[in-house]
C-alpha cells in the first residue's frame, strides 16, 4: 500500500500488490464490516450496490421482512447508474470516489490505515502475464487468519481454470482491447462512435454506448459474469469496484494521450445534472460532472499510480480523423445502408447483410467512395439489441471469408451483452429499447479498399458468439446500419 502523498490517496494496480497486501486485506475486512450493516444504512454494502441498480425480486441477499429504505429514498438514491450516456464516466467516478471514502472510513474505524485507496484491475496490461486473471485474494474462502474472506463472497461464472491460485475466467484479448483510446471524440452524435457516449439528460435508457463503456467495460462485466454480469447485482461483487477504478483510470489515460482529446465543455454536461449520493459519514450530498473532473480535488483526493499511454509502446499515435474540439457538436452523420430486417443471433456464427442505399452511394463523399487521410468516418450501428442472454459477447467481422478462423483484418469490434436484459424490459427503468452499439470501421474500410475486397453496394456482417453460462441465446439485433460522416 502506497502512503498518501499530500493528502492524495494513490490507487495502485492490483497486480502490482504482494500476496494479501494490506490494501487487499483491509478491503476484505471493510467489505465484511459494511456487509453487516442493514440495507437502510447508506454506508452498507448492499445500499452501495443498490445505488447502481436494484431489483428486489432479484436481490440474492434479500431477507424476508427486512426494513427497506423509504420509497422516496430509493427513488432519489438507488438505481442511478448512467449508461449509454455522456454521464457514464462522471457518474461512475463520483460513485466510486464516495464508495472509496466509505470503505476507508470503515477501515479506519477498524484500526486500519487512513492511506487506503481502491486498487484498479488493469486487465489490458500486456506486460503482466496474469493481468486477465482474477487474483486469488478474490477467490480463496479465507483470510490469512482463517476467518471468512468477504472478497470471495460473490457469485461469478467461473473460474474456468486456476493458474497458480489465480482464476482464469476466459477473459481474452478481445475483451480487454483498448481501441477506445484511439477514439478522438468524447460525445457521440446519432450513428457515430465516441469515447464517452451521447449527450443526454439524466439517463436510464440504453442509448448507444461509448467505446469505453462497450470495451473493456461491458466485456469484462460479461467475462466475469454472475453478479458482475447484471446491472442490478454488479455492485455486490467486490471486483466491481476494481474494474470500474480501471475504467475511471482509462478516462484519464485518454485525456493524457492527446491535447485534442477533451471533455465536453457544455454546461449541460458540466453542471446541468446533479447526482444524489451519500458521503462517508452517511450524509446526503450531490455532485455534478464538473465536481469530479479533477481527481486530486479535496472532495475526491485520489490519483492513479500509472496513467501512461499503453498504446504508445505499440507505436500508435493518437488517432487521426476529425477531432471534435471541446464545446463543438459532433460531426453530422448520414445513414448510408441497413439490413432489411432484424437479425437473430445464433449460438455460434450468424451472418447478415447490409445493403448500401443506391441513392446514397454517389453522394457518399470520401467516407465510402474514397479512402485515406481527410476522408470521413464510417460507422457500423448495431441497433436495439434485445434479449435476456447477458452471458454472451459477440465478435463482429465485416466481409470476412467463410471459414472457421476469421481474419483479424476483418474484425470490427466486440458486442458485450452486459445489461441487455434490463435494457430490453420495457417495464423496467431502462426503457425497453435494448442495447445499441456503434463500431468505428473506418480503418477496416480503408484496409479493404486498399486490398480491393470492399464492395460498394453491400456488406456482409458476421457475428461470432463467445458464451459463458447456460442461458439460452435469445438475442436479436433490431437493425444493422451503416453511417458515414
Amino acid at each position, binding site marked *: 500500500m502506497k502512503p498518501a502523498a499530500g493528502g492524495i490517496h494513490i490507487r495502485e494496480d492490483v497486480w502490482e500488490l504482494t500476496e494479501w497486501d494490506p490494501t487487499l486485506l483491509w478491503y476484505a475486512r471493510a467489505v465484511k464490516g459494511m456487509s453487516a450493516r442493514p440495507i437502510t444504512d447508506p454506508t452498507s454494502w448492499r445500499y452501495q450496490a443498490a445505488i447502481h441498480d436494484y431489483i428486489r425480486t432479484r436481490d440474492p441477499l434479500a431477507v424476508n421482512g427486512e426494513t427497506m429504505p423509504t420509497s422516496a429514498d430509493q427513488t432519489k438514491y438507488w438505481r442511478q447508474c448512467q449508461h449509454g450516456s455522456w454521464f457514464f464516466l462522471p457518474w461512475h467516478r463520483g460513485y466510486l470516489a464516495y464508495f472509496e471514502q466509505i470503505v476507508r472510513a470503515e477501515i479506519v474505524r477498524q484500526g486500519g490505515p487512513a492511506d487506503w485507496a481502491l486498487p484498479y484491475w488493469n486487465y489490458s496490461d500486456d506486460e503482466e502475464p496474469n493481468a486477465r486473471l482474477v487474483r486469488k485474494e478474490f477467490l480463496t474462502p479465507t483470510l490469512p487468519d482463517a476467518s471468512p474472506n468477504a472478497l470471495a463472497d460473490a457469485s461469478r461464472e467461473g473460474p474456468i481454470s486456476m493458474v497458480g491460485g489465480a482464476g482464469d475466467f476466459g477473459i481474452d484479448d478481445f475483451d480487454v482491447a483498448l481501441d477506445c483510446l484511439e477514439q478522438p471524440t468524447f460525445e457521440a452524435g*446519432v450513428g457515430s462512435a465516441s469515447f464517452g457516449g451521447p449527450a443526454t439528460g439524466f439517463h436510464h435508457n440504453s442509448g448507444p454506448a461509448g467505446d469505453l463503456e462497450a470495451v473493456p467495460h461491458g466485456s469484462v462485466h460479461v467475462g466475469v459474469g454472475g453478479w458482475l454480469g447484471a446491472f442490478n447485482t454488479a455492485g455486490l461483487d467486490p471486483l466491481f469496484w476494481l474494474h470500474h477504478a480501471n475504467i475511471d483510470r482509462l478516462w484519464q489515460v485518454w485525456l493524457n494521450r492527446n491535447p485534442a482529446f477533451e471533455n465536453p465543455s457544455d454546461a449541460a454536461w458540466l453542471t446541468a445534472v446533479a447526482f444524489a449520493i451519500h458521503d462517508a459519514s452517511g450524509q446526503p450530498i450531490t455532485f455534478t460532472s464538473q465536481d469530479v473532473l479533477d481527481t486530486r480535488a479535496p472532495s475526491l483526493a485520489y490519483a492513479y499510480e500509472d496513467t501512461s499511454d499503453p498504446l504508445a509502446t505499440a507505436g500508435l499515435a493518437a488517432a487521426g480523423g476529425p477531432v471534435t474540439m471541446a464545446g463543438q457538436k459532433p460531426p453530422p452523420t448520414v445513414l448510408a445502408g441497413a439490413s432489411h430486417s432484424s437479425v437473430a443471433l445464433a449460438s455460434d456464427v450468424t451472418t447478415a447483410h447490409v445493403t448500401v442505399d443506391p441513392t446514397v452511394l454517389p453522394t457518399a463523399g470520401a467516407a465510402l467512395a474514397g479512402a485515406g487521410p481527410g476522408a470521413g468516418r464510417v460507422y457500423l450501428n448495431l441497433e436495439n439489441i434485445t434479449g435476456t442472454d447477458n452471458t454472451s459477447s459477440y465478435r463482429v467481422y465485416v466481409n470476412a471469408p467463410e471459414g472457421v478462423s476469421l481474419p483479424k483484418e476483418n474484425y470490427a469490434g466486440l458486442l458485450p451483452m452486459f445489461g441487455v436484459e434490463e435494457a430490453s424490459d420495457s417495464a423496467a427503468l431502462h426503457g425497453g429499447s435494448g442495447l445499441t452499439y456503434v463500431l468505428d470501421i473506418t480503418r477496416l474500410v480503408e484496409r479493404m479498399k486498399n486490398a480491393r475486397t470492399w464492395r460498394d453496394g453491400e456488406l456482409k456482417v458476421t457475428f461470432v458468439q463467445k458464451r459463458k453460462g447456460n442461458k439460452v441465446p435469445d438475442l436479436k439485433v433490431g437493425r444493422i446500419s451503416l453511417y458515414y460522416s
Partner: protein
Amino acid sequence: MLLTLYRFSIGARFAFERLHNPERTLLGLSLLAWLASLLAVTWNEIPVLCISSPTLAARLGAGIDILVQPGRILNEIVAWLTMILAMMFPLLLHPVRHVALRSFRRRRGRAIACFLAGYAGVWLAAGLLASVAMLTIISSSLLTVQIVGAASFTIAAVWQFSRTRRLALRRCHRTVPLVPWGWKADLGCLRFGVTQGRDCLIVCGPAMLAILTAHNVLLCATLAILLFIERGRSDASSFPLAGMLASIAAARSVFVLIG
C-alpha cells in the same frame, strides 16, 4: 428550487441548440397552434342544447347527434388537431429525432409524416370520444357539470401515481428499429407513432380530459409545460403534476360544496 430552475434552463438551452430541422419544425408548428388557440379559443364553441334531456342515454344520443352535424365534426377535428399540435408535439422531439436520423435522408419527411399520422390518429380518435362525452355532460345540470369537473381532476391527480401510468411513461422513451425501405418502412413508422400515441394517451389522457372540463388556455399551457418537463425522464416525479391537478380538484370541490 432556484438551482433546479437554473439547471433546467441550461439543459433546455442545450437541447434547443442541438435540435435538428425536423424538431425545430415540430416546435414551430406547436407555437403556431398555440397562437391559433389564443385567437380562436375554439374550445369555447361548445353549443348549448336547446332541450336538456332527462336521461344519460338520451343526452349521450343528443351529444352524438350534435357531433355528426355537418361542419360540427370538422370543427372538432380541427380543434383536436390544434390541441395535438400545441400540447403534444413538443413531447415528440425525441421519437421524431429517432425517426428522422434513423431514416434515409430522401424519405425522412415521409417517415416523420407516417409517425405523426399514427400518433395523431390515436389522439384524434380519443379526442372525438371525449367530445361526445363532453357534449353529453354539459347538457346536464350545472351541479352535475361541476361534480364531473371536480371528479375528473381528482381522478387525474390520483392517476399520476398509478403503476400503469408509470410503465407507460417509461415506454415513451423507447426507440424501435426502423425498416429502411419500401412500404414496410412506412408501416413501421406508422406503427411506432401509434404505440407512442397509445402510451402518451395513458400518461396524459386523464389530465387532458380533466383540462377539457375547465376550458382554460392558461391551464392548458401549464399542463403542457409540466408534461414537457416530466417527459425528460423515464422516472420523473409524479408530484408536480399531481399537485397542480389536486389543487384544481380541491378548488372545484369547494365550488360544488358552496353550490
